[in-house]
């Protein structure tokens, strides 16, 4: 679990704030982190990983304050940046020399993950293409089985088949107590696996909700005709995609891409209000 309490961060003491008053609680599950360029997504992941320390507020990851940089806390968290050079020749040697820091690291799982991507542990990393290296590192990160796994743009450079494999692998690796946070611009790649979403806008949390609550409070529909009563709708190639207030009808799958676009329009306020309302109703029940 990851908890942020009034966390603020700025890169320079007098500079602009990268994150302001972020209060969040991410329960175990797979969470999607969305935001425009410069919204503070990577900063937030760095704070959760303990690579940055909040100027104000507290960031607790896996139940421990990451600012203290204690080995017990660090061994429960792993952050995979979007671009990383590793000082090892092969993923196998990385597993031998780096994996030893992580008590739950599973070598068998690593072999299996690599196999699913069609890779081998003894292939030289320098000989791999960007996409292949990315796949190898993701397979490794998932095999570490840390309580909190933070992935920055995991689908970058991955082909369509690999994205499907990755989706299955992430879904399988999310065991009971683990929290996976995925920061990405390619929402569609892993859409069906998220348990929650956080939308950042200019360093503020604009929306943080579970997928279940979103599905309960809102309905996401597609039609060939304009949708009446929509909170927000957009058209693409003659198809109208709309967000409606959720009703008693069957729940629809959350369209994160549509939700994200809607959150940058005046419809954002209505969506947030509907989510609050749904929360209150749930409490009453």
């Amino acid at each position, binding site marked *: 679990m990851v908890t942020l309490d009034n966390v603020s961060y700025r890169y320079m003491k007098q500079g602009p704030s990268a994150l302001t008053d972020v209060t969040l609680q991410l329960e175990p599950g797979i969470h999607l982190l969305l935001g425009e360029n410069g919204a503070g997504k990577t900063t937030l992941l760095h704070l959760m990983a303990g*690579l940055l*320390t909040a100027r104000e507020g507290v960031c607790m990851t896996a139940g421990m304050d990451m600012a203290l*940089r204690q080995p017990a806390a*660090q061994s429960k968290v792993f952050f995979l*940046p979007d671009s990383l050079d590793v000082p090892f020749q092969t993923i196998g040697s990385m597993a031998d*020399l*780096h994996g030893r*820091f992580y008590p739950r690291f599973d070598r068998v799982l690593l072999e299996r993950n690599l196999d699913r991507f069609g890779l081998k542990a003894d292939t030289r990393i320098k000989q791999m293409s960007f996409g292949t290296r990315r796949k190898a590192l993701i397979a490794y990160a998932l095999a570490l089985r840390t309580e909190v796994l933070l992935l920055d743009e995991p689908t970058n450079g991955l082909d369509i088949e690999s994205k499907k494999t990755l989706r299955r692998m992430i879904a399988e690796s999310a065991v009971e107590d683990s929290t996976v946070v995925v920061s990405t611009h390619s929402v569609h790649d892993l859409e069906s696996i998220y348990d929650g979403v956080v939308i950042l806008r200019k360093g503020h949390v604009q929306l943080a909700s579970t997928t279940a609550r979103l599905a309960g409070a809102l309905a996401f529909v597609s039609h060939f005709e304009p949708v009446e009563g929509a909170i927000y709708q957009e058209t693409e190639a003659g198809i109208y995609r709309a967000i409606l207030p959720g009703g008693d009808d069957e729940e629809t799958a959350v369209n994160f891409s549509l939700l994200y676009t809607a959150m940058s329009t005046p419809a954002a306020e209505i969506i947030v209000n509907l989510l609050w309302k749904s929360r209150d109703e749930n409490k009453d029940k």
Partner: protein
Amino acid sequence: MKTRINNTLGRLGRLWGYYTPSIRRQSLLTAGITLVCYLITVLSARGGDAIGFYTLATLICICTYYMGPLLFATGRSRALEAQLPATPGERTMFALGYCYVYIPALMAAVWYGSYAIARLTGLIEDDPECAIMQRIFEEAHLSDSSILQIKKLSFVNISQNMLTTSVCLYFSTKARNNAVLMGIVSAVCAMMALGFIGGAAGFIKGMTDATVGNCHNPEEIVESMMQFVARLQYAISALGCVCVVLFTWLLYRQYKYRQI
């Protein structure tokens, strides 16, 4: 894989493991350079006018020692290194152990190992370094007391060397970009600063002697200069010790508070 990493020794061992590929590369390079430098020293001792080569070999050797901290110039794998579960104190301890114990020990092992092999195989009869130093002393007309003074100073040099290494270590771990370059530049700057201090002090001493006219013959001048150099070396060594402690503290703070 079940591992226990809840003790300092275990984590230090794992840090060694993490850096192993880089350590292997740097060890081979360091050992190779030391060996070449030793060969130059042997050839210089045999040659007639080869003190210049010996000086060059010594300089290369000492620079190799100064560059030991470049192991910690992690560049684009910084995010991976910074996440390693180890306390700032353990990271500092590991870096100090590597730079101040492992690298000098490796160089000494190669240097004296080469000497031993050369002696056993009959390639050399005496220590080539001693032969060269003897020649320098003779050419400089140094008295026995001056030679003794220089020998005493050799241990004092350790703190000066540690100073340059500690500067390189701090800057190569601190730099976000071009960490290797920053490490090299900082070490060169530290060497230049020490050289400047020595040069300035020598200039003042020379001018004072020339103005006051204390010494009348060349041997007296050399003798007086050696005593002055000895005093200066001790002063710089004291400064070196203070700087090493300061940069070690800065290194610890760097590991504790750094923002990636």
